[in-house]
């Protein structure tokens, strides 16, 4: 027997032992190499950006499951790896017609004049209907504010401006922070509740009241819109290019610039418009099943579960930018998935000493509106009441080792206090005077869990770097957000500090181990709007 054959057989015999007994170190150079390997596969062009319901997403599923199997991590007992999510997708076709008739007739063109959002394949306004301008499109009794007070919009199309009334007073529409009323979904729901046929939104640039960059909006809305098979009633939803919005105001005596002035001077008011509108939409649609992947490190002595999540979908294939049409999503969120795989491998090796169960959940369709996590919370694999807390991994340090961390819990729970306790014990610095920005919190899967009454949060790199000069670090973060995020350039060609990612995995793993020893479970705060859900879970069980 030659040496290589001997080595082969020895290796073969030791393989099962290797899988279950070899201790892997999380956070060292090997750990960084593994994270690099995971991201190299998940963010490769061959996965075509892991779009929801795409072949690339299926390849990613297989890679994740194969790795979990290789580490001896099974699905939840008696269940499948997959949680099937029924989804419906639609794409608006260029031959759709949005026509506006006022003093003259205008045929608006998809993408150059408007984009469609929050609608459905059966959206149709076959004949002209009346329109009205309804300010921000908000009815908010708690702020004594109602854009619909003086107008009746039943059967009409409502034209509104983006955003909400500006104030520095935190008790009024959350001050300078965006409240839920600024969301397109909120404006559409409020309009529908008044009997309107739909909403057209004129985007504005923050407080300046100026026009936004239309190309950016066009790019954001170029992808297929996807919804769960159960969804809120919908109507017509569109965003208009500010340069084209003047057609709605023809003959009204008010210009788009006047609207911008109203925003700037806090004099937004509502009024009927002479323009009429029709929409003859042409769509292609599909119904399909996508999957969440659930793995478990189980402890039969307790019913309590800690849930670790990372979404594995990204945007897929879109319009080319500088010749590249694959939106790979390396940072968003191949790197998060890689870090979660690394943490899972670290946890399974410590299984015998764990006091709690851990659910490792890879979520689909996050980029389509947190659909994977919304579906999970409506169809939980583990009873929600037994779910202690959720740590979501979406945004891994990649520029430098962080000198500080940001805890994003939206002020909904006491998770920050737990992390502070852990950080203090381990000499980890947290950002000071950190404000919980609600619009940042509501943009991740952790938000779905909070809405279901489960304390949930996200840890991200903070303001301070370890090695790079502060100015360069800050500029690189800004550059990523402005130029790379959600573009085809979030790919394997960019610089990624895999040691920083591995260090992050180690910190999160240690935090889970720290929480595993805590007797009390994190709690939702009474001030949270979702505290009632938290209580409801406990009352009904």
């Amino acid at each position, binding site marked *: 027997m030659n040496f290589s054959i001997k080595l082969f057989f020895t290796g073969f015999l030791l393989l099962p032992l290797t899988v279950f007994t070899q201790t892997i170190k999380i956070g060292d150079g090997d750990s960084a190499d593994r994270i690099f390997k995971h991201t190299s596969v998940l963010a490769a062009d061959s996965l075509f950006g892991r779009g929801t319901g795409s072949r690339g997403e299926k390849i990613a599923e297989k890679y994740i499951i194969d790795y979990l199997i290789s580490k001896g991590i099974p699905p939840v007992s008696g269940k499948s790896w997959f949680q*099937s999510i*029924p989804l*419906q997708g639609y794409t608006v076709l260029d031959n759709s017609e949005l026509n506006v008739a006022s003093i003259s007739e205008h045929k608006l063109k998809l993408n150059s004049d408007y984009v469609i959002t929050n609608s*459905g*394949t*059966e959206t*149709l306004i*076959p*004949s002209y209907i009346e329109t009205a301008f309804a300010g921000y499109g908000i009815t908010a009794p708690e702020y004594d504010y109602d854009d619909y007070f003086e107008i009746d919009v*039943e*059967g009409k199309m409502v034209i509104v401006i983006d955003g909400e009334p500006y104030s520095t007073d935190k008790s009024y529409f959350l001050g300078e922070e965006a409240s839920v009323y600024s969301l397109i979904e909120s404006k559409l*729901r409020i309009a*529908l*509740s*008044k*009997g*309107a*046929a739909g909403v057209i939104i004129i985007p504005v640039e923050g407080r300046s009241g100026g026009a936004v960059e239309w190309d950016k909006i066009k790019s954001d809305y170029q992808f297929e819109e996807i919804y769960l*098979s*159960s*969804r*809120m*009633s*919908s*109507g017509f939803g569109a965003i208009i290019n500010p340069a084209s919005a003047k057609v709605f105001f023809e003959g009204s005596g008010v210009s788009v610039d006047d609207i911008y002035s109203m925003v700037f001077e806090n004099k937004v008011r509502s009024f009927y418009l002479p323009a009429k509108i029709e929409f*003859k939409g042409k769509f292609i649609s*599909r*119904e399909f*099943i996508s999957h969440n992947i659930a793995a478990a490190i189980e402890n039969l002595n307790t019913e309590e579960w800690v849930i670790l999540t990372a979404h594995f979908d990204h945007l897929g294939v879109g319009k080319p930018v500088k010749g590249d049409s694959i939106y790979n999503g390396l940072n968003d969120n191949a790197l998060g998935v890689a870090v979660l795989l690394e943490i899972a491998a670290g946890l399974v090796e410590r299984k015998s000493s764990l006091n709690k169960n851990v659910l490792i959940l890879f979520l689909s369709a996050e980029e389509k509106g947190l659909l994977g996590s919304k579906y999970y919370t*409506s169809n939980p694999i583990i009873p929600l009441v037994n779910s202690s807390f959720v740590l979501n991994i979406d945004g891994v340090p990649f520029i430098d080792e962080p000198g500080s961390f940001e805890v994003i819990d939206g002020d909904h729970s006491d998770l920050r206090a737990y992390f502070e306790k852990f950080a203090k014990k381990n000499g980890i610095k947290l950002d000071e005077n950190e404000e919980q920005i609600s619009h940042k919190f509501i943009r991740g899967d952790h938000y779905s869990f909070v809405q279901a009454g489960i304390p949930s949060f996200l840890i991200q790199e903070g303001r301070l770097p370890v090695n790079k000069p502060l100015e360069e670090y800050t500029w690189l973060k800004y550059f990523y957000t402005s130029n790379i995020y959600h573009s085809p350039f979030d790919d394997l060609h960019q610089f990624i500090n895999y040691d920083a990612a591995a260090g992050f995995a180690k910190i999160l793993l240690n935090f889970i181990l720290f929480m595993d020893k805590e007797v009390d479970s994190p709690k939702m705060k009474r001030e949270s709007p979702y505290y009632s859900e938290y209580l409801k879970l406990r009352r009904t069980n």
Partner: protein
Amino acid sequence: MIKYLVISIVTLFLMTGCSSFTREGGIITIRGSETMNKSIKMIAAGFMLQNPGYSVIVGGGGTSVGMKTLIRGEADICIASRPIEPGEIKELVNKQGSLGISTIIAKDEIVVYVNSSDTLDGISLSELKQIFTGKVVEESESGRKLEYKLILRSPNSGTYSYFRKHILENEEYGKNSLTVNSPNEVIEQIVENNNSIGLSGEMIYGNQLIKPLLINGVAPGKREINSDYPLVRYIHFYTLDLPEGKIKKFLDFVNSEPGQKIIEQNGFISLWGED
């Protein structure tokens, strides 16, 4: 047919087994689309066999009637063969504090039928609009003037509203028409009147007295999810909240393999056949 229904239900029962019998229960009230009425009754029968604690009451009346009962709080589910209208949403908000939740459960082809003695085999969407708005259309090949008596469902039906909005673009139906309530009566009238035309949300096989028309050159009845047939719509369940409890249990059954099989067997297109 009854024999077939019984066999389907018994098969369903055997497939799903007795082990899932539970003590939980409740009453689920469903109203709405006549188009889906038969399918939902069969699914309800299968559901009740598997879950003896539950009673599912399925009533028809049409989508508009279903919406009204949901708005009044008298139904748990409205079966709708068209999307909810803005005015209905407003009423739902005012009466029940909900915008309504739509759950799609199937796709449905609207099939256009004429009497089997008719020489017409196919028609375009624009010709269809002209005929149903009462205009006389000249057949391009034969030069024959197509002038039909319209056999319409009641204005409360989703098929009536959907077709008027999506094909007639909100124009009124032609005056030379007869209105009947059920899909079966539409077919009966077409059989009895040589020069009549009507719509059904169901592909009917084996009836030699009627003829389904090709639309834009495409035949109905392929039951393919991505068929080119242009008259395809969704069937929705409308509920006040995201389905949970007994409603979710029933919806899960509708979306299960046995539930979707019944939907397919009744001529509708299953949405979740493949995973």
